[in-house]
């Protein structure tokens, strides 16, 4: 037992809030699962409402806790899932490269994402199921062009093989972190989707209260 600085998965500097959106069945939950558990869930049930996952990553030497909200793609949950865009620092917008319809719906998802999030929210387009090359229905170039036109980051990934999954989540975080350094994200609020951890008083202190915790409690 020691109060050394490294206390494993409980130590971090920021919390970033993400939301994963996209049509039903495109593999949102599988991407999240692959990212948090490094496993592929072959028969994953439809998400009911929203689900939640976390993982701590490192960006430029900073430990960052990702708090990820995986939304249901089914239309009937749209009214519910819309409320989770609020305060997201990153939005992963997913389509299925083997189903054109999921790609065609992107603009509607994008409209939601733009209107319901902070202007600085990083939106990352993911073409999932990249492992099913034979069934491809949307070309890389076409999606890339869509992403460029709309100022989105873009990658093709596979929740099954894990290819590019890590990258998508990490690059989103990097971009958000960049925004923080640029000063375009205000850190002093819970609602930006980015929360600096509480200035931690070491396992000490009566008098050594951190000066900036002027809390009312």
């Amino acid at each position, binding site marked *: 037992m020691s109060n050394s600085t490294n206390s494993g998965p409980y130590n971090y500097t920021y919390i970033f809030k993400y939301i994963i959106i996209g049509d039903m069945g495109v593999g949102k939950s599988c991407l999240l699962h692959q990212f948090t558990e490094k496993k592929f869930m072959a028969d994953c049930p439809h998400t009911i409402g929203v689900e939640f996952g976390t993982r701590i990553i490192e960006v430029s030497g900073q430990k960052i806790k990702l708090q990820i909200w995986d939304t249901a793609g089914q239309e009937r949950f749209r009214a519910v899932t819309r409320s989770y865009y609020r305060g997201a620092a990153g939005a992963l917008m997913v389509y299925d490269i083997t189903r054109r319809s999921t790609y065609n719906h992107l603009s509607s998802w994008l409209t939601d994402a733009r209107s319901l999030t902070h202007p600085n929210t990083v939106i990352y387009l993911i073409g999932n199921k990249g492992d099913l090359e034979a069934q491809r229905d949307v070309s890389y170039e076409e999606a890339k062009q869509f992403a460029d036109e709309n100022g989105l980051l873009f990658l093709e990934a596979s929740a099954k093989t894990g290819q590019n999954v890590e990258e998508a989540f990490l690059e989103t975080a990097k971009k958000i972190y960049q925004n923080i350094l640029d000063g375009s994200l*205000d850190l002093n609020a819970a609602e930006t989707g980015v929360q600096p951890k509480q200035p931690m008083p070491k396992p000490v202190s009566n008098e050594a209260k951190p000066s900036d915790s002027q809390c009312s409690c």
Partner: protein
Amino acid sequence: MEKEPSTPEIQTQQNTNLNNPISRKLNKILESRIENDKELLESLKTLSMFFPENSIRSRRNLRSDIEKRSLVLNEEFLGAFRNVKEQLDDISSIIGSMSECSDNMLTRLKQVKLQTNELISKTNKLQNEKKDIDNKLKIADKFIEKFQLQSDEVNFLTPKKDGSLHPEFFKVLEKVRTIHENCKILLRTNQQTAGLEIMEQMAINQEAAYERLYRWMQNECRLLCSDTVEISDFMSTALFTLTWRPILYKYILDEYCNSRRNAIVKLFIDALTKGGPSGNPRPIELNSHDPIRYMGDILAWIHQATASEHEFLRSLFRKFKNNLELESSIKSSLGVIMDGVCRALRVRIEQVLVSQQDTILYKISNLIKFYDFTIRQRIDESCELIQTLVEMYQLSYKMFLNSLNIHATRLLDKIEPPNFELLPNEEFRRTLTLIKDIFDSYNNSVVSVNTKKDDYVQILDCVIEPMLQMCSLSAVNLSAIDMAVYMINCIYSIHSMLSLYEYTDSKLEKLEAQIDAHLDTLCNEQAYFILSKTDLLDAFKIIQSHDKKVRGPLVNVLGMDSNTLKSAMSKFDIYLAAPDNLIVSQFNLLLGSSIRLKLKQKSVRLVSDAYKLIYDAITDPENGYSNSNSIVPRTPDQTLKLLS
């Protein structure tokens, strides 16, 4: 050479000579080899020394010379020997004294040996004693190590000036606890006094340490009031350690929950009224004009806060064993933390509910139910948040049913006769649309299938009966046909709407039965209409009630003569050629082609049944028609074929 043969003679000579001493002597002399006799040579040599010249005198004196010489020699020898003897005597006396000496030593050795034995046994004894003492020392050291704190350890238990605790705090505290525990073993030995004393001392140490830990933890908890918290390993260990003092543990947990509850309330109010920095994201209340969005945002916020707090609690409890007890600890703590938002939440929901009606109320109730279900998975079910959600759901659902009832009573308030189209009125259609809306929102709804089923039944019970009642009431003054058409139209509208949705089967069955009842009326009317238009009605009625035994053959009955029948039958023939020309006019107002088809089929059967009755009567010889074939040229089968 000559001697050779004489050898035996010599031998014999020798043998004879042996007996002669002189010869023996001679032989001896002859045989003796002087040069070989060393003694003799030696003697001769010696003799030559003092016998210089072989003179008489000297030969005469030889003996005395030799004797003299011998005497001298003996005297010399004597002298030398005396010397030797004297020396030997000396040696003997020395040896004598040596022996005496060694005797002496031997006795002394014996004595010493005796004394040493004693010493050795003494030494052994001492050595054993030393071993014992060493062991005792070791034991004492170990004992001290096991049953006492080192001075630095005592320091670790004392807080620093700034109130902080030493990193080794828990290790030492654990040691104190172990010592205290081990004292119980001591008490079972004959070390009871020591045991008691140490126990008391450790108890004091322990209480002081727990007290300090408690104070420290209390302070830490009070600092945990920002949006997110990070729980250090030290803190989680501290909480775990406090489980040894259940009361302190409970207080600290309360303290933690309190801090977080306050933080959550503040955050909630901020999210509602202030939003993010420089207003982005916008405050949730900005959307209060859109009740569904507003409620959705509020509940989603609560859900997310619950999830975050759940994570924080997990990290607070991470040093605990993962089991059911821990799970319930987390759930109940989460309940306490989320307590704080209940009042604000309740007020807002109620505010929204009072100004809404029908479908919106319904959607809100669904939304609340969904979040009840979602949040319930993480939190203690008996907590206030869940209670609030349940109550708010019940309230919204009750208000929804109320608003449905209002509709229903409004339906019954304004009873007016239907217009000439015999279609359901405006209010009826509006109510139907409302149900459709509600059911549609169900299709988009987030609640479970079971709820859906129950709700459907309840909603239908609440509305369908009053609707049907209204229809009956508004139709009281209509003719039987008009009434049946109108009722069928109304019921059919309901039926066709409901048939789009699941879980309406039993209701649909009931409605179908009602439609069928009205349809029967219409079929009879239609059949009567055809029979009367073809002038067969009278004949049909007479035949139906005719009793041959009483009144004789039919042919004699008034109005049943061949001619009358023939003319009627020809009209019937015309009908058969174009059956669709003879339809009750109101039937065209019937909604639903399936209903019209059913009506047609049923009435055709009635008509053909009637025809068969007439046909059978006329072709019955007892009835006295001579030319029955010309009256009824078609068999009933042919008629039925033509009609269908």
